[in-house]
C-alpha cells in the first residue's frame, strides 16, 4: 500500500523531470503523452492504496510512511512522510483521476502550441505538488506542497507569457497566495512554539493544552491560507483573473483541485478548528458570504470562463460553509462531485472555445447547440448537476450541506438562508450562461465556425468529457441521505462530523434547494431563452456594483497597491539613490581618490625612498626601546 502511495506521488514528478531533461529531443506529442501516462500511473497508485485501505478494518485505516528525516534541529524533527488514510486517499483519487482526464484533454486542446512541452511538464509538476500536499504526513510537508502548488499555478496561469494580462494575473495569484502562505507559516510557528511538533497527531494532542489565544492564532493562520488558496472573500480577486491560463488549467487547478486545498486543510486540521470554535464559525461565515457575492457577480459576466470561475468560488463557499459547521464528510462529498461537474463544465466550455477558435465572449456566441450537439448535452448535464437537480451528483452533495446547516442551531440557520439564496442564484447564472451560449439562433461567429475539423473535437478531448459527464451523473449515488452513506462512513474516523441532520431536515433542505434552483432556471428562461424575452431590468446602480465585482479590486488597489508603489518610490528617492547608490559610487570614487593620494608617495626619486627607510628605522628604534 505504501508503494502505491509513493508511486502515486512520484510518477508525475518523474514525468515532469523526464520532459524537462529531454527537452527538445522529444517531440511535443511525446511530451504530452509522457505527462498523461504519468498522471494515470499516479491514479493507478492511488487505486492500489485505496483498495489496500478498504481491506483493512475501519480502525486501522491510517498508515504513515516516512522516507527519511528531512529536518532536524534541536528538539524538532520533521520527516519526509506520507500519511495514507481515507481522507488523503480520497483526495489522491480525485486529483490523479480527474487530473489524468484533464491532462488527456490537454493533449487535444494544446495541440499545435509551440511550447507544449513546457505546458505538460508544468502540468505533471502540478499534479505532483498537489499529491504531495494531500499526502503530506505532517504540516511542514503540507506547506511544501502548498507552496509548490502555488508555484505551479503561477507558471500555468502565465503560460502564455507573451500576453501581459496573463503575466499580471499570474503575479496577482501568486502574491495573494503568498499572503495566505505567510499566515500559515505564522500558524505553524505558533504550533511549534507551543507544542514543539508539526506532526498531525502529536500537534492535535498538544493543542488541547494551549491557551485560547494561541489556538485562535493558529486556526486563524490556517484559515488565512485556506481562504487565499480557495479564493474566498477577502482573498478571492485572483481567481477570475486566473482564467487567462489555458482552459484545461482552469479546469484542473481552479476548479477541481488546487482551490479545494483550503477545504482539505480545514478538514485535516479540524481538531485545531474545533478547539477554536469562533474561527471555525468565521470560516463558515466567509463561505456563506462568498457564495452569495460570487453568485451575484456571476450574473453579469460576459466571459464564459469567468462565469464558471465565479461559480467555482461560490461552490467552494458551500464547502467552507460545510466544514465551518463541522460537516466534514459533506464538505468533502461536495468537493468530489464539484470536481466532476465543474471540470466537465470547463472542458465543455473549452470544446466550445476551441471550436470557435479561441473566442470566449458569450455575447458573440449563440445557438452553439446547432453545431455542437454533444457538447450541448454535456454542458446541460454539468449545469444541472451544478444547480443540484436530482438525480445528478450535485443534488446529493449540496443538499447534504444545506441540511447540515439547518441542523446547526441559530447561526447555522442564518447560513442556511444564505445557502438557499445561493441555490437560486446558481440556477440563475448557470442557465443564463447555458441559454446565451447554446440556445437560440446561431450568431454570426458561430456560423463562421459551423464546420470545424474533427467534429466537435479530437477523441482526446471528447472522451474525458464523456467520462466526466457520466461521473457527474452517478457520482452522487454513493451517499444518498436516508438510504446509505458510504462516503460518510469512509471518512468517519478521520473527521467525525459535528452535526448529524435528521431525515426531516434533509428533506426540507432538499425540497427548498431544488425548488429554488428550478426557480432560478425559470427566471433565466424568462430573460434569456423564452421566445418573447422580457428585457432585462435596468437597475443601473446594482449593475454597476456587480460589474465592478463589488469594487474589491479597486479597494485593494487603493489600500495595498498604490501605497506600496508610493512607499517604494519614496524609498528609491531617499534611500536607494542617495544612500545605497551613493555609497557605492562613493566607495568607488573614494577608493580612486585614496589610490591617487597614495600614489603620490611613489615619487620616483631615489632619495625620498632612502629617506623613508631612514625615517622608518628611526621610528622602529623608538618602538623597540620603548617596548624593551
Amino acid at each position: 500500500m505504501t508503494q502505491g502511495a509513493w508511486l502515486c506521488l512520484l510518477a508525475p514528478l518523474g514525468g515532469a523531470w523526464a520532459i524537462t531533461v529531454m527537452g527538445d529531443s522529444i517531440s511535443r506529442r511525446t511530451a504530452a503523452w509522457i505527462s498523461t501516462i504519468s498522471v494515470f500511473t499516479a491514479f493507478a497508485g492511488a487505486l492500489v492504496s485505496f483498495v489496500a485501505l478498504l481491506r483493512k478494518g475501519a480502525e486501522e485505516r491510517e498508515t504513515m510512511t516516512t522516507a527519511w528525516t528531512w529536518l532536524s534541529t534541536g528538539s524538532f524533527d520533521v520527516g519526509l512522510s506520507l500519511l495514507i488514510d481515507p481522507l488523503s486517499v480520497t483526495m489522491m483519487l480525485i486529483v490523479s483521476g480527474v487530473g489524468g482526464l484533464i491532462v488527456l484533454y490537454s493533449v487535444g486542446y494544446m495541440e499545435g502550441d509551440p511550447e507544449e512541452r513546457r505546458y505538460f511538464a508544468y502540468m505533471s509538476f502540478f499534479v505532483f505538488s498537489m499529491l504531495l500536499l494531500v499526502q503530506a504526513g505532517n504540516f511542514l510537508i503540507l506547506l511544501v506542497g502548498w507552496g509548490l502548488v502555488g508555484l505551479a499555478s503561477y507558471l500555468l496561469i502565465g503560460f502564455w507569457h507573451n500576453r501581459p494580462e496573463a503575466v499580471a494575473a499570474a503575479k496577482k495569484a501568486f502574491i495573494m497566495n503568498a499572503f495566505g502562505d505567510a499566515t500559515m507559516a505564522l500558524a505553524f510557528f505558533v504550533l511549534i512554539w507551543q507544542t514543539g511538533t508539526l506532526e498531525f497527531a502529536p500537534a492535535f494532542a498538544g493543542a488541547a493544552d494551549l491557551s485560547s489565544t494561541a489556538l485562535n492564532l493558529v486556526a486563524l493562520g490556517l484559515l488565512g491560507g485556506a481562504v487565499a488558496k480557495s479564493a474566498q472573500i477577502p482573498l478571492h480577486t485572483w481567481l477570475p483573473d486566473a482564467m487567462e491560463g489555458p482552459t484545461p488549467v482552469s479546469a484542473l487547478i481552479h476548479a477541481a483541485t488546487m482551490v479545494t486545498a483550503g477545504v482539505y486543510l480545514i478538514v485535516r486540521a479540524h481538531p485545531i478548528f474545533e478547539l477554536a470554535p469562533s474561527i471555525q464559525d468565521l470560516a463558515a461565515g466567509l463561505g456563506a458570504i462568498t457564495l452569495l457575492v460570487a453568485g451575484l457577480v456571476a450574473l453579469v459576466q460576459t466571459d464564459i470562463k469567468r462565469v464558471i470561475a465565479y461559480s467555482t468560488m461560490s461552490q467552494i463557499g458551500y464547502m467552507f460553509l460545510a466544514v465551518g459547521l463541522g460537516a466534514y464528510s459533506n464538505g468533502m462529498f461536495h468537493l468530489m462531485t464539484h470536481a466532476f461537474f465543474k471540470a466537465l463544465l470547463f472542458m465543455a466550455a473549452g470544446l466550445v472555445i476551441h471550436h470557435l477558435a479561441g473566442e470566449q465572449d458569450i455575447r458573440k456566441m449563440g445557438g452553439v447547440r446547432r453545431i455542437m450537439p454533444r457538447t450541448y448535452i454535456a454542458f446541460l448535464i454539468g449545469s444541472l448537476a451544478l444547480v443540484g437537480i436530482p438525480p445528478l451528483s450535485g443534488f446529493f452533495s449540496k443538499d447534504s450541506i444545506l441540511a447540515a446547516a439547518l441542523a446547526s442551531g441559530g447561526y447555522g440557520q442564518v447560513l442556511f438562508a444564505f445557502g438557499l439564496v445561493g441555490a437560486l442564484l446558481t440556477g440563475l447564472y448557470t442557465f443564463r450562461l447555458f441559454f446565451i451560449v447554446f440556445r437560440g439562433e446561431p450568431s454570426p461567429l458561430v456560423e463562421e465556425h459551423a464546420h470545424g475539423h474533427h467534429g466537435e473535437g479530437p477523441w482526446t478531448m471528447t472522451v474525458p468529457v464523456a467520462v466526466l459527464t457520466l461521473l457527474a451523473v452517478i457520482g452522487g449515488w454513493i451517499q444518498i441521505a436516508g438510504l446509505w452513506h458510504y462516503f460518510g462512513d469512509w471518512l468517519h474516523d478521520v473527521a467525525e462530523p459535528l452535526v448529524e441532520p435528521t431525515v426531516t431536515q434533509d428533506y426540507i433542505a432538499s425540497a427548498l434547494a431544488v425548488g429554488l434552483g428550478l426557480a432560478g432556471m425559470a427566471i433565466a428562461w424568462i430573460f434569456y431563452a423564452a421566445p418573447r424575452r422580457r428585457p432585462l431590468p435596468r437597475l443601473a446602480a446594482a449593475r454597476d456594483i456587480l460589474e465592478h465585482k463589488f469594487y474589491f479590486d479597486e479597494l485593494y488597489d487603493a489600500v495595498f497597491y498604490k501605497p506600496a508603489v508610493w512607499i517604494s518610490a519614496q524609498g528609491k528617492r531617499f534611500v536607494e539613490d542617495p544612500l545605497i547608490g551613493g555609497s557605492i559610487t562613493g566607495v568607488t570614487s573614494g577608493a580612486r581618490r585614496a589610490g591617487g593620494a597614495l600614489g603620490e608617495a611613489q615619487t620616483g626619486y631615489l632619495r625620498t625612498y632612502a629617506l623613508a627607510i631612514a625615517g622608518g628605522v628611526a621610528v622602529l628604534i623608538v618602538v623597540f626601546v620603548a617596548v624593551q
Partner: protein
Amino acid sequence: MRGPDVSWYLIVSAILFSIGVLGVILRRSPLIVLLSLEIMLNAANLALISFARLHGDHDGQIFALAVMAVAASEVVVGLGLIVAVARRKLVLDVDRFRVLRG
C-alpha cells in the same frame, strides 16, 4: 681594557652612521651615494667589532668580515651600473631616474 670603553666606540659608530645617512639622502651623484653607503657599512662594522670586544666573542668579527665581503660585491655591482649609465651618455644625477614614478 685600556683606553675608552666600548660605549665610546659605539658613539663614534653612531655618529659615523648618521653622517653616512646624510650623505645617502642629500647627495645627488650616485658615486657619492655609494661612498656614503660605504661609510654606513663601516660604521656598522665598528659597532660589531666593539661588541665582539665586549663579549669576548669572535662572532662579531666574523660577521664584520662577511659584511666587508658583501660590501665589496655591492660596490662592484653599483659601479657597474654607474658605468653602464655613463656609457649611455645619461647625466649622473639620482634625481633624473624617475621612471618608476607612481
